[in-house]
């Protein structure tokens, strides 16, 4: 059957002739519901998105002190995001500021990198006073948008990248972030 005869037969169906507009409206609605989240993520969402890093994650390095403290929902610039709080530093490294840090969310098939914002943690500084390091800025916060992460479980990792040499140091933490249909949850 060619296209022409197929369309001809279609036209002969009276209910279709009668309700074609409504069918079109509902089909359009279904298409909209399916593509809207991707469109939102691509064109409207501005913050909490992963960045693209052209690198291969190194094996775990044990030389890292960290804590992934909490994950809070937050409204930021009108967007529903999450903030991940914690601290991390490399013991024995006199100048921690030579590294930039990323939060890594890793599943079996996907890896996402999120840039962090440094935050001051006087409590960490005083807790590790015996190390004689400047740890005041060891805190971090990261915005995470659930919209850019498919459903599933993600191991939280912390990546240190040397600003000059691009040397990488990485550690998988004990924390897992679970992306459900509507939420992100932190499991420690």
């Amino acid at each position, binding site marked *: 059957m060619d296209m022409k005869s197929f369309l001809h037969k279609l036209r002969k169906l009276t209910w279709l002739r009668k309700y074609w507009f409504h069918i079109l409206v509902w089909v359009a*609605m279904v298409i909209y519901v399916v593509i809207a989240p991707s469109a939102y993520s691509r064109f409207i969402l501005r913050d909490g998105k992963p960045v693209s890093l052209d690198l291969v994650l190194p094996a775990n390095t044990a030389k890292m002190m960290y804590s992934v403290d909490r994950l809070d929902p937050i409204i930021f610039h009108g967007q529903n995001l999450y903030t991940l709080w914690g601290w991390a530093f490399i013991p024995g490294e006199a100048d921690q500021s030579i590294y930039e840090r990323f939060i890594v969310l890793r599943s079996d098939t996907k890896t996402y990198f999120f840039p962090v914002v440094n935050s001051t943690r006087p409590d960490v500084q005083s807790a590790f006073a015996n190390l004689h390091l400047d740890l005041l800025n060891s805190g971090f916060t990261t915005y995470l948008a659930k919209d850019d992460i498919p459903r599933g479980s993600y191991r939280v990792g912390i990546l240190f990248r040397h600003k000059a040499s691009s040397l990488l140091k990485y550690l998988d933490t004990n924390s897992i972030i679970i992306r459900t*249909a509507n939420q992100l949850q932190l499991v420690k």
Partner: protein
Amino acid sequence: MLPLLLAVYPSLFLYSNNAAITLLSSLIRLLWFNALLALVVYLISLLINKFNAWRGSISASVFLFYFNIYGMVFNFLYKRDFIRIEHYTLLPLFILLTFYSVWAIVKINNFNLHRIWNIASFIMIGLIIINLIKITPAEIEKRRDLSPVSMPPPSTSISRNPTYPDIYFIILDEFSGFEPMREYWHYQGVDDFKQFLENNHFFVAEQSHGESQETLHELATRLNFQEYPCCDQLRTYFSAIADNRVMRFLKTKGYTTITFDESESAFPTDLPIKSDYYYGNAPDTYNSYTIIDNFDKLVIDNTMLRIFSNLYDPLIEFPSLKAHIDMLSFTLDKMNNLEVASPKFVYVHVLLPHMPFIFDSNGFVIASYYNTNWDDYLDNYIYAIKYAEKMITNILSHADPQHPPIIILQSDHGARNQIYNGNEEHLLKNFPERFKTSILFALHVPGLDTSTLPQDINPINTFPLIFNYLFNSKIPMQ
């Protein structure tokens, strides 16, 4: 009329279920909004239906029905968490459904349309009458409670006895006893706090528990040294606290009574305590910031207007957080500068370390929203310790050494680990039930032999213990 009935029904229904804790003025404000909405929707519908009144009315009603259930459907699906729910997908779907429902209904012939209109109106009128019947007794009770509450003038007729000590009754709301802090949070700072109290000659009971987890029940019980039925007897507790036995008794002894009480922010219908000086809020803060209240949110959250929650939530949260912060500062400052002659009874009830958990351990505000995450309880607890220490230091440093004050430092209940807005992930894991009633119980009563007081002292005996010691009142202990 049908659109109007449909528009006002959700507000009336929710008010009837919350009448004890909601102000009538909040309902009236919302009813005006509902009526205006119904009028606008009806006029638009009339225009679309070429001024056919029946069809216009039915169409408007269908729209208002969908308008009023949108938020509930969103919430239900969001919480079930089996399908991704966003306003930008659910709302267009809902609007499309609304149009199709209207389209289907206006195709019905006029005779049947009249019947539908009549039946729907009859049902709505019935539902509204049922809710009005529920609301009326609650409102009558509120009026009855309010009528006798007039602030008595500062004590003049009863002669003062300046040798009586000032009495401070300080309640830190939700402040856990020490045992849970050591065992669950592994927070050893409570030992320093205990040491601080003992250095200032406080008796500290470590095993004291409240009878319930309800603030008002606990306060009513302690301020009247009598048992009240637990729980949810709000009107009973309101009255018992507002006109309490402790203050009545102390008035007969010539005391001036002063109240600092944050209950009003949690219970807008709470009755002000009958005391000579009453501070429910820091002056010039709360009312001037309030635009919409929690009842408005409760109603609006169920409607299509929920899509604007990111805009209106801060309008509710910011004023209440600001009022809370202001009240904490005000209480601390004002207690220091009370130009009231002794003897005086100062009652302080502050929502610290109560939710929202907005402070870090130094008292800096870290959350500009209604933070309900129990992981932050500890920081607020540590700040509460500092707040209490400052309060006690101030009281003792300003006290007359010849007539040292009595200080009762307590909490109403422990950390209750209560869920808020269904956020189960904000709860503490494996938090023992028995910890929820574990309270702070510390007494500074110069001259009283506390060596025989039990560590699990029942807080209901607080005032009998003190009155028997001070005035030989012979009040039986429980």
